[in-house]
């Protein structure tokens, strides 16, 4: 049962990364693909009706994590106190900028929110990547099942790690480049004209960055977290997950050349899904590895009571069917390219 919940949380996190990933990416490339006010309005319009729903996946995944693995929620969230709070601040800034930008047509108002939108998106991508890096690398948990990480110590992988060290920074940068590619493919899919062309070009460049960083990160990760290697050795069927990532990445390049905007975006989704599931598969059965393996939190020692997990499964399935229905409906309603002067732009 706890393994099932481990997978379900992983699925929800993956959904969050796929969906909010493209709107974070769109934010990160905002200034690169859109030069005029009208073009920037277009970029925002591609995510306007959906970003809020995408972000709900983060909240929903957090909630499920909370009731399925209370100890993990308590330990992880208090241990990552500072970076999480900064993530919250960035989410506040980002949400405000998307919502408020179009309210006043003024040459000081709009660039201000554009800048905040782009900067917060960019930093969020790095922060989320660094957070993932921390989870893979392991944190200084002790016998109390708690830890507290400062933002940085000496940037090395010792026993007193900080949030930022060379490994987590590397993951953060990779996450940024990956989401820039993902976001560019989304913007390409949803826009026309100059914005579309610039996005396509940017996605092409980012692709090479993703390729190099993915290769590098994979090699490094095998050394940083030995569990990953062990898991792939124990269950070779797991190789299907990195294979999905590789196929996805190859697919992005292939579809960019064909070109098929829709398939390129979907291939990028497959890449992200493959990467995330590989990581999750690699650390299982740990949910939060410790630097000292004795104190790692696992699916078994962090799980909630059996009744709650069982009853949760029932409403989770019902809720997910409903949520999937809404998403399909909303994305279909707003399908197609964003026009430049529809009611899709607020105010």
């Amino acid at each position: 049962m706890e393994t099932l919940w481990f997978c379900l949380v992983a699925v929800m996190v993956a959904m969050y990364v796929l969906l909010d990933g493209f709107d974070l990416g769109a934010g990160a490339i905002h200034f690169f693909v859109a030069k005029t006010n009208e073009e920037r309005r277009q970029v925002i319009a591609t995510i306007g009706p959906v970003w809020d729903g995408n972000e709900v996946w983060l909240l929903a995944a957090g909630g499920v994590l909370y009731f399925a693995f209370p100890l993990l929620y308590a330990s992880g969230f208090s241990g990552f106190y500072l970076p999480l709070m900064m993530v919250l601040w960035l989410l506040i800034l980002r949400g405000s900028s998307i919502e408020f930008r179009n309210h006043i047509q003024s040459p000081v108002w709009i660039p201000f929110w554009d800048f905040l939108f782009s900067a917060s998106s960019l930093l969020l991508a790095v922060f989320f990547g660094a957070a993932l890096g921390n989870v893979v690398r392991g944190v200084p948990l002790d016998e109390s099942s708690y830890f507290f990480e400062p933002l940085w110590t000496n940037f090395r992988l010792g026993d007193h790690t900080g949030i930022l060290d060379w490994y987590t920074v590397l993951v953060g940068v990779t996450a940024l480049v990956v989401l820039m590619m993902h976001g560019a493919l989304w913007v390409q899919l949803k826009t026309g004209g100059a914005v579309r062309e610039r996005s396509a070009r940017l996605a092409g460049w980012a692709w090479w960055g993703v390729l190099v960083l993915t290769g590098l990160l994979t090699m490094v990760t095998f050394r940083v977290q030995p569990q990953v290697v062990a898991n792939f050795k124990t269950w070779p069927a797991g190789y299907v997950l990195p294979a999905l990532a590789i196929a996805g990445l190859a697919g992005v390049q292939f579809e960019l050349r064909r070109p098929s905007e829709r398939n390129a975006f979907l291939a990028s989704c497959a890449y992200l899904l493959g990467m995330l599931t590989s990581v999750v598969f690699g650390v299982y059965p740990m949910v939060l590895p410790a630097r000292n393996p004795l104190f790692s939190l696992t699916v078994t020692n962090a799980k909630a009571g059996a009744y709650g997990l069982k009853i949760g499964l029932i409403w989770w399935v019902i809720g997910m069917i409903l949520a999937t229905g809404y998403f399909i409906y909303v994305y279909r309603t707003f399908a197609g390219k964003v026009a430049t002067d529809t009611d899709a732009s607020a105010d």
Partner: protein
Amino acid sequence: MGSALDIHRLHFAFTVTFHYLFPQLTMGLALLIVILKSMALRSGDEHYNRSARFWAKIFGINFALGVVTGIPMEFQFGTNWAEFSKTAGGVIGQTLAMEGIFSFFLESSFLGLFLYGEKRLGRVGHWVSSLLVFIGSWLSGYLIVATDAWMQHPTGYRILPNGEIGLASFWGLLLNPWALAQYAHNMLGAVQTGCFVMAAVGSFYLLTKRNLIYARSFVRVGVVVGVIAAVLQLTPTGDIQGKMVAQHQPVTLAAMEGLFQSQDGAPLAILGQPDIQKRQLDNPLQVPSMLSFLTYRKWSAHVRGLDSFPENEWPDTIELLYYSYHVMVGLGTIFIAVMGLSVILLWRKKLFEARWMLWLLMLSAPLPYIANTAGWMTAELGRQPWLIYGMMRTAHGFSPRVAAGNAWFTLLGFMGMYTVLAMLWLFLIYREIEHGPEPEENLGAPSPAPLTAD
């Protein structure tokens, strides 16, 4: 003030108090917008649609602030209250997760459609989307109240072998009698915020002589719904809540009422300042035997005062609790008077000319915010010194590894950021009000658009 416990408490109190300024209007307006959309659908009168569109803009700004200030709330259970989360996460995580999955997905999906999709959805479709946004936001309210109610009056749980609290009955948690009573009381408070704001904007337009057709509708809808909510707020919902507190948290009742000595035929304090050292209410203005009657429906009933409880079970900020409660009840009473009077004037067709009443309505807009805040402070301060009533003390719930310095750092960060957000909210909402609904031309004639999508 200055220990890690105090800062963590202040951190949550500050962020949640600020956050709740927005959802109360969101939930109140959600209902009023559905009412406006329904009137538009029934009568075919286009001005109701335009009214709904105007309020949707205000709703959108308000909703966005509710979302961005709401995300930190869920996170803070883990970041600042780790011991509590570890112990009780298996129970309250259920309601919090359900909020995300059942209401936020619904709300966010259909709000996008409601705000951006009127042309694509058609009239009926747009009405449905407003209804779904309403259901989503009210469901979210229920799940949050149920979470709080479990902390006030735990039900449906059992203690697991490892000392953590596990869920034992799903329906026991969801249909906690405390949650049902608190929800009804809380939502009426939110509806009143919506009504007062809507009536205030209408009064503002009437007083400044513009958008008159809209203005009359706003005032009419605001005061008619408002008077119903104001009365129900006091009785039965307020009354039921009071009885529950008397039954399950008697020490809280004594502190709220400023009743230091147990007595038969206890008086109800209307005014007065509690002096904890001397164990008395200074300058009291009291109604004899009223507290006994309100609580037990018997003038001579015995009510336990603070003296019948050990001091370590007293709420730790009795003064603030006492004032919060009295502010809430006092304002609630004023609301009945203001709304009641407005409705009488409306009924006699004098309201729109009664400038003094319109002034009063316009200036009352901040009051329900204060009353709702005071109400929540009564509930949460009244729960002290418990985090989970009777089971876990607040002093045992915070994150052991997060130092006071780190909590100060983030508290100050939130304070700075929220100050800016508050100014932005005022600025943008004022702009929308100033800008007003679409011009009144072509109104009066039935909507030329056919019932199908345009």
